[in-house]
């Protein structure tokens, strides 16, 4: 419990130790602590940003999906309309073709009928002439009555 020069020795040691800590211990540790604090703060900020980005992206995805669905619907209805149009057109065309064909067939049939009529007329005329010839062979001179016969043929 006695006082002696140890006091001064301790006083000097005290300052040397404090100086050493100030010079070589405190600054690196505090620097590391501050840097880590900054890193953590940056990390948290980045996480926050990522979160908002994700929310934004999700919103965008929903929007895109909606738009895609809309355009698909649009496309389908357009295609259906187009299909209906095509079918209608085809039907009209077919009807036209049928009409044309029918007309042609009717014309052809008409012509054939005419031809047949004419042929028939010829044969009837011939038959009539032949019949008449047989009947009239004896009294009618074909040369004399040729004009008469031609007129008759014309009338048939």
């Amino acid at each position, binding site marked *: *419990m*006695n*006082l*002696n*020069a*140890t*006091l*001064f*020795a*301790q*006083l000097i*040691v*005290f*300052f040397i*130790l*404090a100086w*050493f*800590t*100030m010079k*070589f*211990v*405190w*600054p*690196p*540790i*505090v*620097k*590391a*602590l501050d*840097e*880590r604090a*900054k*890193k953590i703060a940056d990390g948290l900020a980045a996480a926050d940003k990522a979160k908002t980005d994700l929310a934004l992206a999700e919103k965008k995805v929903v929007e895109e999906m909606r738009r895609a669905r809309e355009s698909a619907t649009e496309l389908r209805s357009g295609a259906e309309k187009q299909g209906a149009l095509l079918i209608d057109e085809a039907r009209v065309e077919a009807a036209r073709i049928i009409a044309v064909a029918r007309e042609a067939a009717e014309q052809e049939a008409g012509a054939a009928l005419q031809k047949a009529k004419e042929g028939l007329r010829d044969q009837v005329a011939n038959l009539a002439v032949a019949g008449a010839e047989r009947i009239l062979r004896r009294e009618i001179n074909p040369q004399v009555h040729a004009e008469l016969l031609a007129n008759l043929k014309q009338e048939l």
Partner: protein
Amino acid sequence: MATGHEANAPTAGEYIVHHLTHFNTTHEAQKSIVDWSVLNLDSIFWSVAIGVITLFFLWRAASKATSGVPGRFQAAVEFIVEMVADQAKGIVHSAESRKFVAPLALTVFIWIFLMNAMDLLPVDLLPRIWQAMNGNEHAFLRVVPTADLNITLGMSVGVLLICLYYNIKIKGLGGWVHELFAAPFGDKWFLYPVNFLMQLIEFAAKTISHGMRLFGNMYAGELLFMLIALMGATWGSGGVAGPLLFLGHVVAGSLWAIFHILIITLQAFIFMMLTLVYVGQAHESH
């Protein structure tokens, strides 16, 4: 451990006195209360050795400190550094001063904690080794530097010098001298002597109580460990008293050691906090 049944065994009083005597430059107990020609070599040795160990570990932590994921050792040091830095920030408001004061507080805290922790070693362990090394079974050695008034007062005087330095640095020499005479009672000429006397008493009281508080706690703790050791020393004496006292040694020693963990930490913390408070006061003008 001293054994009570030896023929030349010391009495309890001798045992205690022997343990409380420093190994100093005179190689005998100091006679006068104050003798500036004497050095307590044991206190200086343990104080410096523990200081060097403290700084070595702190320096290792500092040189390996990264801002990445810290290891356990680094985290432990950082934990203490953060604690001290927070306290310093709350008490000393000058960032410039903190550059010195905060590291000082850190050093003081860990250094004093470890010096106090020497109390937890068995009271006879290091003295016995020392006596065996010297071949002198009466060699003196005290291993708890903070149980030496010179050590604690040396540190509190160091804090006083730092306070004076900051008083002058912050307030200017004139401003500080003015404060010495004008505070705390007021700037009236007839109050100057009273103010100055109060200031002197304040500085003296701060410094002495600062050193004495730590010394008293550690000295008392050391003394109690010695008294507990005396109980165990009765082992082998006749009757039931010996074994019972031995049991008392084990129980009381364990309890006191566990309680002492609190005391050594608390005292180191108090010394650090008061250092910060006193330096902080040096920054405030009345």
